[in-house]
């Protein structure tokens, strides 16, 4: 049974230094609030996993939480580069960042394999690409029936997966709809999981074949309305495209980045506090 608990407690008890942590959400439902809380609590040496590391991983990498990144596309969608990610890879700031790089197909299959308790994922992939030359975790196996060569990569099995979803009921059953990404697989692949939700309701009112995570498959459910901001939750909020654009100049220099993180994340108590201070700083800028 999932424990319905404040986000601060969920992160304190479920995310440890050195853990392999996946924050998932494919443009939609990115768990920004949980990412901030991990930064606030000063977690270190994390192996971060995510198909599309974007602003939240740029922040976590820039704040020194990550030792390693396993990913398939790292950018600011619709805007350009992740400057903190690039600074870590290109200049080793704030420290060296190890990377393990895949394609989306590889990562998606690795999550499926993890959720399926298989040690590796099997796919037709990476053919003709240089990725296998730089990633020793991309290997090839032979079909025992046809002799065909297929790609094999290790399953993703995080210690903790963190996602944001629309709803939970009071028992902790979780409903997700819209762009689903790999969230279900990421939760089922993990030993522990945290789900932040827009609201907690009496009845999920889920369609018969909806994407529901039963309460007994989740460790903690945390009520964090708007917790995906600047990403969005279908039916609750819109993506704040202006924040994605605003992030580019903030993250470009180490100094502006650090000042921004100090004021908006380290010096605030929680995500509601972050949103208040952000509203103030946006007003100041105008």
């Amino acid at each position, binding site marked *: 049974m999932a424990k319905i608990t404040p986000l601060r407690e969920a992160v304190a008890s479920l995310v440890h230094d050195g853990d392999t942590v996946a924050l998932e959400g*494919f*443009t*939609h439902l990115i768990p920004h609030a949980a990412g901030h809380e991990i930064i606030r609590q000063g977690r270190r040496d994390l192996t971060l996993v995510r*198909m*599309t590391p974007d602003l939240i991983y740029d922040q976590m990498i820039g704040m020194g939480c990550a030792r390693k990144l396993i*990913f*398939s*596309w*790292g*950018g*600011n*969608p*619709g*805007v*350009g*580069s*992740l400057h903190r*990610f*690039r600074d870590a*890879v*290109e200049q080793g700031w704030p420290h060296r960042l190890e990377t393990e*790089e*895949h*394609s*989306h*197909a590889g990562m*998606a*299959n690795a*999550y*499926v394999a993890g959720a399926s308790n298989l040690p590796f994922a099997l*796919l*037709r*992939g*990476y*053919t*003709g*690409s*240089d*990725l296998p030359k*730089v990633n020793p975790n991309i290997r090839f196996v032979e079909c025992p029936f046809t002799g*065909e*060569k297929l790609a094999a990569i290790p399953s993703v099995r995080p210690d903790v997966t963190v996602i944001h979803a629309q709803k939970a009921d009071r028992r902790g059953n979780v409903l997700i709809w*819209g*762009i*689903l*990404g*790999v969230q*279900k*697989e990421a939760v089922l692949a993990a030993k522990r999981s945290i789900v932040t939700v827009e609201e907690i309701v009496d009845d999920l009112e889920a369609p018969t074949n909806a*994407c529901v995570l039963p309460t007994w498959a989740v460790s903690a459910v945390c009520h964090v309305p708007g917790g995906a901001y600047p990403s*969005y939750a*279908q039916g609750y909020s*819109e*993506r704040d*495209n*202006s924040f994605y*654009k605003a992030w580019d100049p903030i993250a470009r220099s180490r100094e502006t980045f650090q000042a921004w993180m100090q004021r908006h994340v380290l010096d605030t108590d929680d995500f509601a506090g972050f949103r208040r201070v952000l509203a103030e700083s946006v007003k100041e800028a105008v």
Partner: protein
Amino acid sequence: MSNETLDFTATEIMTVAASRLLQNGTVCFVGIGLPSTAANLARLTHAPDVVLIYESGPIGAKPTVLPLSIGDGDLALTADTVVGTPEIFRYWLQGGRIDVGFLGAAQVDRFANINTTVIGPYDAPKVRLPGAGGAPEIASQAKEVFIVLKQSPKAFVAKLPFVTSAGYLDGGDARAKAGIPGAGPTAVITDLGILTPDPVTKELTLTSIHPGVTVEQVKAATGWDLKISPDLKTTEIPDAGALAALRDLQARTAAAHGQLGGEG
């Protein structure tokens, strides 16, 4: 390169030319940005039954404005169905059900191989690019691939620092020999013209040049000695309907998002 006399920009003719290549009824795996703009323009003009699939999960998306991200809510709300990302890559792309993969690129080489990973050495990159995303498997598994990007010597390079996604590898039958199922990139559409692979050598050849552009301009924008087709055609200018539809789409997108679609 805005072209006042013909009343369309270089980006516009590139987008319209790319869109024209998509036939009605085609099942198209769409990358965000220019590919998505061209594919949606096709859907709103000559190809109303084109099926747009985005890697975030929407199948048959019919967005009313251009998506700014690969997972915009409008894609989900207008789709025939939305499946998980693993299913998109497993059942639909790897399953062999995609007619056209529509990709952007940071760099291409003369055999239409794509780099979106690094400039410089992988372990000590000069520029760390976003990485592969869905491209390696789109490039290998879609029945054919269109690539759309602006032409410049930095983007069209003789030798890629990193092959993220396979075009024709070393050319000739190298791609087939590597066991890659799809036909590969059949067109590279740029702001200067359209390049298609030589039927035998698979070397990219300029086969269509946009009106008002000179062959010298195209050669200067290419980092290798670009082959020019003896049958070089001039790209048809965007018809008024397509141009109006594109501008209308971009105006609606700007109104909805306060930002132009397809610019990232």
